[in-house]
């Protein structure tokens, strides 16, 4: 099996690579590439993302044909895809970080700044927070409710269809931290930095 981590100059992805290689051992081949043919032929795709919504969308668009290839992979061919952090946020129709920017539109909704309640909550939301599992998801196999995951973000994804939310986390309000729509999965937290429990989520995705 081939799992491809999309390398589109979205910031630091070395931790994502290290964690997937650690989980995959020799059983699964982990590719790190922006090569369209390799992405097309892979069994699963990981879409990481750091920095702003706009910078990530711009970086995707800078690689000719990448957005189309990802669209085909995830929405036409319905092969498993995992978005991490801004990778998840880009599923939305629109994001408001820096300036209004169009997302991939795979899950209707928007990405807006977390309400810090007049400075009561510090932003970015950095650190370990518990996830509240609201719906069973294939990537939650052997993951207990209220497990701690590592978060770093100031913006949140607000999907229109609440039934696609599989977990939330409590920071100023119930922030969406996991979504699942058929073959498309997303985590707002960083499984690659969430210790053994995070690696389990990666393992679950690899073994889908």
């Amino acid at each position, binding site marked *: 099996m081939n799992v491809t981590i999309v390398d589109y100059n979205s*910031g*630091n992805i*070395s*931790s994502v690579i*290290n*964690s997937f*290689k*650690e989980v995959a051992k020799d059983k699964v081949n982990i590719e790190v590439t922006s090569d369209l043919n390799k992405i097309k032929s892979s069994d699963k795709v990981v879409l990481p993302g*750091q*920095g*702003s919504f706009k*910078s990530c969308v711009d970086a995707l668009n800078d690689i000719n044909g990448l957005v189309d290839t990802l669209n085909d992979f995830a929405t036409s061919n319905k092969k498993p895809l995992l978005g991490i952090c801004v990778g998840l946020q880009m599923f939305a129709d629109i994001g408001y970080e820096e300036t209004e920017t169009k997302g991939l539109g795979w899950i209707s909704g928007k990405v807006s700044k977390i309400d*810090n309640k007049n*400075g009561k909550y*510090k*932003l*970015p*939301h*950095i*650190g*370990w*927070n*518990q996830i509240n599992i609201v719906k069973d998801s294939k990537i939650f196999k052997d993951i207990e409710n209220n497990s*701690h995951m*590592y*978060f*770093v*973000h*100031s913006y949140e994804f607000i999907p229109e269809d609440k039934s696609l939310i599989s977990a939330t986390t*409590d*920071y100023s309000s119930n922030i969406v931290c996991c979504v699942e729509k058929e073959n498309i999965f997303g985590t707002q937290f960083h499984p*690659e*930095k*969430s*210790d*053994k429990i*995070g*690696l389990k989520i990666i393992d679950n995705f690899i073994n889908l």
Partner: protein
Amino acid sequence: MLKNRIIPCLDVKNGRVVKGINFVDLKDAGDPVEQAKIYSDGGADEICFLDITASNENRDTIYDVVGKTSKKCFVPLTFGGGVRSVDDINKLLNCGADKVSINTAAVQNPEVVEESSKKFGSQCIVVAIDAKKKGEKWEIFTHGGRNNTGIDAIEFAKKMEDSGAGELLVTSMDRDGTQVGYDIELMSKISSMVNIPVIASGGVGNLDHLVDGIKLGNASAVLAASIFHYGKHSVKEAKEYLDSKGIPVRI
């Protein structure tokens, strides 16, 4: 609920841990990778490396340390010491660091903070503020605490937030190494001034100091080096103690 973080810090010189944990089962007490693994297995929420290598020639050893650690430890890794340019930051992130802490360069050349937070995202840019009390104010020191800049630490903290820093690592130079506790007044002043998380550092001698840093200093995270060295306290003990005092921690 977001948990307060405990961050053990390892001082590394020429690729070796200077003051480390002295566990009996440790094969090589100077190996930073092995020490970091003990911390992460013990529940450290994050691990911080501070490179105190004086010469530039041995600089590459730290990249090797960061690279090897990131293949073994799956919690956030912060690296500080001698970070001068956007290129340095890029190199460290590519090696596997998750955050980079900038000290002297942030004072001398604040554009580094602005440029790097735009390029890599605020989440990986930590500005380290070394401050010393002078009268009613605190002044910023650079070059590992050797140079007094005369810059007001509180104002500088605000400026760094505006420049795009994702977090502030605040060290009291008066308290560092004394083991008498954090400079609570400094921590709480900076914490109330900015809307980004503050990591308290400098002066921890016992577990109550960690409690004070969070409860009184309003720090989001507490960093300590020596109390975890030589096995005085484990990270697990520290967390259980904080938990017993009603502080939310990841256990």
